[in-house]
């Protein structure tokens, strides 16, 4: 009998344990098992109402404006009947190191939002407010910051069909001068000779400058010293490839970035005064053919190798190439939108990286096999961590899109953009939409 009593005692204890555990193991309400994502619905509702900026317009209107009624009608119409809402608009006031949110107006279709609700907020800006952007200047926190744009009136261009070097220089000035400490137009080959000699034109810093050649495949050559035998002219080969070698040496000396906007770099040299009766074999006078020897000599000069004449063709025709993902990111950052695909007919080989101690710092176009359609190459002497000269070569076919040049440079230097505060007083309002469900459990 005693055992039976003991068993009943055990049953009593286990029953007690079950009742107590059941008391704590409260099952959730059926609605919370599979809930609607009210937060997302609230956010997407606000986005829907603002699709044509109607919401942004209405929330800045006077509280008695009839458009508030329209907003309520639209809100009621677009939400399912079992959803109740409360939309509150706050004025955003900033100052004193903090922000203050003052309620302006509230509209609702129910006294309470039930036991469970969720909300989303949406910041809208007044349509009559403009937001400024101040770019960081290249060279602001270090040396350099000078942009030279070759706008030589005494030199002709090639593969810039449809443009002139002058119009390209103007466009580049408009696109890039904001980002540099000084922008200087090199108006003739004499001025080019001056800066090659290390003489500043307007007191600017020469070192670490960027030089953009707007003459396309041709490069302006100053008459005199830079066209003389052994400096600019190779009497053995009857070629001005020697000038390209000297140019490479100067780029190295001043740590410049030389920019080739289209085609085969340094394929011709141009000076109307120096070559009045010579043409580039295509009928453009004031220009002389150098061929692939120009780029080969330039790269040797950049790498501090002795001059040697090499007329070997090194580029490849790739066809359609695409902007790299990083370049696409910087398209959005700087608001420059060239076509994301271009035709490359003068892509450089990756073999130049090891031959001339170059490192690609920015891939403007995605690499295709062992070819680089457009990239910034920085030269680093073996064992040195500081660069000594750079080349930005866009091996695309004519005609040039100057926005790609601007994009590539900004991508490489990455100057920051300082945007004005969105929370300036009276310019922003915060809209909070809180949703709840009615009916059911």
């Amino acid at each position, binding site marked *: 009998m005693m055992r039976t009593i003991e*068993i*009943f005692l055990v049953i009593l204890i286990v029953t007690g344990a*079950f009742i107590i555990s059941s008391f704590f193991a409260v099952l959730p309400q059926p609605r919370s098992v599979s809930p*609607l994502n009210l937060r997302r619905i609230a956010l997407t509702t606000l986005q829907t109402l603002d*699709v*044509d900026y109607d919401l942004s317009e209405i929330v800045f209107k006077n509280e008695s404006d009839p458009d508030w009624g329209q907003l309520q*009608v*639209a809100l009621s119409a*677009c939400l399912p009947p079992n*959803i109740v809402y409360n939309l509150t608009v706050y004025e955003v006031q900033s100052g004193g190191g903090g922000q203050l949110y003052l309620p302006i107006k509230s509209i609702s279709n129910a006294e309470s939002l039930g036991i469970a609700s969720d909300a989303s907020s949406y910041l809208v800006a007044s349509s009559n407010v403009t937001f400024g952007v101040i770019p960081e200047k290249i060279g602001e926190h270090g040396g350099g910051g000078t942009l030279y744009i070759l706008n030589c009136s005494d030199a002709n261009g090639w593969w810039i069909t449809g443009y002139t070097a002058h119009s390209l220089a103007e466009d580049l000035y408009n696109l890039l001068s904001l980002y540099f400490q000084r922008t200087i137009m090199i108006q003739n080959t004499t001025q080019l000779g001056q800066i090659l000699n290390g003489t500043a034109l307007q007191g600017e810093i020469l070192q670490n400058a960027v030089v953009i050649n707007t003459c396309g495949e041709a490069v302006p050559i100053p008459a005199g010293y830079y066209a003389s035998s052994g400096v600019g002219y190779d009497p053995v080969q009857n070629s001005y490839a020697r000038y390209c070698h000297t140019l490479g040496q100067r780029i190295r000396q001043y740590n410049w970035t030389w920019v080739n906007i289209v085609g085969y770099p340094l394929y011709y040299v141009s000076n109307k005064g120096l070559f009045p009766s010579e043409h580039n074999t295509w009928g453009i006078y004031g220009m002389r053919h150098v061929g692939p020897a120009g780029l080969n000599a330039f790269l040797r000069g950049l790498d501090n190798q002795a001059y040697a004449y090499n007329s070997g063709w090194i580029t490849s025709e790739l066809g359609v190439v695409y902007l790299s993902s990083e370049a696409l990111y910087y398209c959005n950052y700087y608001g420059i939108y060239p076509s994301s695909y271009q035709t490359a007919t003068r892509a450089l080989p990756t073999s130049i990286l090891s031959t001339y101690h170059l490192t690609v710092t920015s891939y403007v176009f995605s690499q295709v096999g062992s070819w680089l359609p457009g990239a910034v190459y920085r030269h680093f002497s073996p064992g040195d961590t500081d660069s000594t000269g750079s080349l930005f070569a866009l091996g695309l076919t004519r005609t040039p899109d100057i926005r790609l040049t601007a994009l590539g440079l900004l991508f490489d230097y990455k100057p920051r953009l300082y945007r004005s505060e969105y929370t300036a007083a009276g310019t922003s309002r915060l809209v909070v939409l809180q949703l709840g469900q009615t009916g059911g459990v």
Partner: protein
Amino acid sequence: MAGSTIDHLISVTVFLGAILLFISLFNQTLQTAILYQRHRNLATKCSDLLDNMLLNPGIPVNWGRSNCTPTGFGVQDPEFTQYKLSPFSLMRLRSSYGQPVYYPKTGSYYSNITMGFGNFLLVSFTQAINYSTVAKLLGVNNTYGFQLTITPIITVSVKEVQSKNPLKISVEVTGTGFPLANAAISYCFLTVALAEGGGEYPSYKTEYGTTYADDKGSVVLEFAEVDDDGISYAFIAYAHLSGLIGVGYHERVNSDKQYIIPFIDNLEERKVLIAHSYDVQYFGPPVAELSYNATFVLLTEDFTLREMPMDNDTGKVGKVNYGEGKPYKVVTIPTYNPGILIITYRKSAVEGGVILMPWGISSMAFPVTFGEDTSGKEWVATDLRQVIVNRVAYQAKLALWSLESYPVVG
């Protein structure tokens, strides 16, 4: 001795019975908790999957405008961010709403999102993306079943209330939860002129206008020039209020057996086949040749419809007939901007009509139902988003269920 044995037997029996009972009770609580977790997980999965579909354009991003099969699924408009969907990607989803239509002259089936007589959207099965492909691309094949429904938030109901002298058309605008009071309504009224000028092809007149709905969201429009109930017409209305845009339409035809059916056959090349209705459904003799005249209209920024000129070489006019040796004709849509293809047709000098076809689902606010049927499923989680399809407000709803069966108890 015997007493203690009996005591022992009774106590063991009672103990075993009690243990079994308690195991069953605790097991029930545990099972309910596990089920709760599974259902909760299904709801989370549903929300995530819906965002996955709506917040990425797929791979390649412009698959909606091409004939290729995507390698990544998403219906976001590649030109926008947020919950803005591509009207063409949605058009390529094989509809589970209407019965597929077989067109013998191409030997193909067409996905059917037709919304009543005269409002056709038929996309070739070779262009439409099927459910199993999408399930594989989303990684839910054999684990979850789903149905994606995209329905317009604003319903613009258009009805004829008086047939002539004058023609009266009522327009009623409602949302999912409330009428759209005082909504602005812009409309296009197109009347078919069958015999005018004695030309071979039907001509048409268009009239554009704007008006406002009353407090109940409705308005009645009068067209005094319609003095005969044999005049065929099409009426398209756009209602808008505070960012919400809805579309409604209505047609009246006097040749409702022999008419034109447009089939979208090549999205990439924007080719639409113009077929005779008897090739799809034969109603018996006499069979008449139909001449047609196609027009393409776009919704502009100020909510008015504007005609986009079509060159003659796009096949804008032509004749089609039923039977072998009578080939279909082809119209090339002039743009990838969403719009409406309006095709007026003539059977005889007194019989003809007009049909509409949206180019991109949003231009006529067509709904899309894609995926499996939800009926009979054990536990279905749903989630909603408000989305925009080319400025038209839609609601996207995903119903999701698990294919790994488990019993519902408790």
